[in-house]
């Protein structure tokens, strides 16, 4: 009960903070739109080829972009948290009876909202250009990606508190971002690649998210791929929230 209330209060605080920095909202919106405008046209000639079965290339590409957005929305949490470690905010909150899980969830839920709004915008913009998803499946997909954002947000926060240095955090997060996104088949389907690449991808939780995302956008909700996506991403989110809570419990500037 108090966990819910505290989570709501702390999420509200984070959202207010975001609203007061409109530049980040603007950037959050513009990046995915740039992918659509500047990258999607390159895929046009691939339509109907391997990895792009029938329909519009956007049907393959947009789910990937959504996964990328979900990842990117959670990534920044570590910086926010590090800042608060330095300014004593975390110490102050840790002396209050507030639940440590609520502290992690406050940031994670803000990141989910900050993912969902530009995601809706991308869907809106892509539709007139031939993106033709299964809207029910897309609803389920957004739930899956909310879990992914929460997992990334909590992990980033935990990393920030653990590493304590902006430089180390930047190195680790950006160092992970590239292999994780490449090995997820976000931009191009991994089925285009050799077997070893596809094998390696199976170790990457994001891969399951992307696979499930393409299935869901196409309307296949009840499938093994989707179940695997929810299982892997859900487990990752739980583990990340647990990790984040643990680091908050011990956090020391």
């Amino acid at each position: 009960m108090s966990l819910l209330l505290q989570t709501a209060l702390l999420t509200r605080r984070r959202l207010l903070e975001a609203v007061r920095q409109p530049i980040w909202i603007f950037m959050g919106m513009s990046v995915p739109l740039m992918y659509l405008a500047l990258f999607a046209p390159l895929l046009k000639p691939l339509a109907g080829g391997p990895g792009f079965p029938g329909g519009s290339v956007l049907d393959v590409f947009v789910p990937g972009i959504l996964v990328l957005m979900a990842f990117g929305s959670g990534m920044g949490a570590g910086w926010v948290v590090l800042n608060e470690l330095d300014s004593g905010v975390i110490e102050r909150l840790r002396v209050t009876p507030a639940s440590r899980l609520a502290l992690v969830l406050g940031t994670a839920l803000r990141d989910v909202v900050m993912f969902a709004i530009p995601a809706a915008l991308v869907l809106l913009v892509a539709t007139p250009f031939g993106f033709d998803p299964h809207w029910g499946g897309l609803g389920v997909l957004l739930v899956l990606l909310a879990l992914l954002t929460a997992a990334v947000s909590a992990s980033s926060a935990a990393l920030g508190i653990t590493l304590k240095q902006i430089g180390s955090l930047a190195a680790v997060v950006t160092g992970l971002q590239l292999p994780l996104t490449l090995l997820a088949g976000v931009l191009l389907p991994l089925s285009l690649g050799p077997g070893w690449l596809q094998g390696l991808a199976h170790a990457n939780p994001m891969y399951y998210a992307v696979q499930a995302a393409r299935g869901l956008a196409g309307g296949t909700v009840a499938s093994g791929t989707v179940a695997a996506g929810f299982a892997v991403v859900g487990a990752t989110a739980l583990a990340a929230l647990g990790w984040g809570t643990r680091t908050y419990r011990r956090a020391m500037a």
Partner: protein
Amino acid sequence: MTGAGAAPSAVRVTGLRKAFQSRRGRVEALRGVDLSVAAGEIYGLLGPNGAGKTTALRILTTLMPADAGEVVVAGLDVRRRPAEVRRHIGYVGQLGGADTAATGRENLILQGRLYGMGRVETERRATELIDLLDIGPFSGRIVSTYSGGQRRRLEVALGIVHRPAVLFLDEPTLGLDPQNRANLWDQLRGLRGMGTTVLLTTHYLDEADQLSDRVAIIDNGLVVAEGTPEELKRRHPAAVTITTRPGPADLAQLAGELAQEPLVRGARSDGGAIRVDLDDPTTAMAAIFDRLRDRRVDVVGVTLREPSLDDVFLHETGRSLRDAADPGEAGRIAS
């Protein structure tokens, strides 16, 4: 929300130890600290940087576990019941900890709600604190626009939203100008007047002396002296320097005689002046001046230097508090 009612002391610390593992070895930050803070007093933990004050405060406020020792705050064991302890204490850290992207009022309201206070009650309390700490003129502004003094006031308000029985402050006046310092002292005295126990760390002598009811001098992870500032200072003599007009009297011999007087700890001549160390200057002074008149010594000036807590520190540690900031690592690394 007090809960300290039945307990004789608001804070009781026995045998507190804490060591950190650093790359250069084990650093013992606290080596067996004992403290007892009575309910309703302002208690100062005085010591140089690196003495272990902040570590002690962090353990007392549930932020960090101790290696050994017992800590009871507001009648509750900190190790066993940290969640309950948190309901009874307030903490104003050295770093501050106000949310810089929110307004002062928003900060206060969130803090109150996190302590489980209802919406209406929190609003009322926020208004009350804005009044009490003079936050009114800027309570609606984003904290990142605040001056140092304004921010500190807000941070103290954040520490007492839930009316804690014990308020902990880590170097509360660090970086404040004299005016804001004096204001904060008054506000802390006001809190004491309302029954709040205040435990603060400081490396300022005057803060320990003038603000605190009792003081523990901490150095190198140990409490080296404890008592009211008066008690501590009374153990040390006041220094009276008497400047004389050149005359026939032999000042060195006179100093030797003065040293034999009751209540005089020592005396020596220094050029045209005599320096006398007195335990109780008000009583001893008359006898000294009688003696000077007998010897026809013309006094042209008298200065009295009362003992300070720095004398206490110097006596206990062999060095002055002013010079003691950040003792060498070597001194703190255990073998």
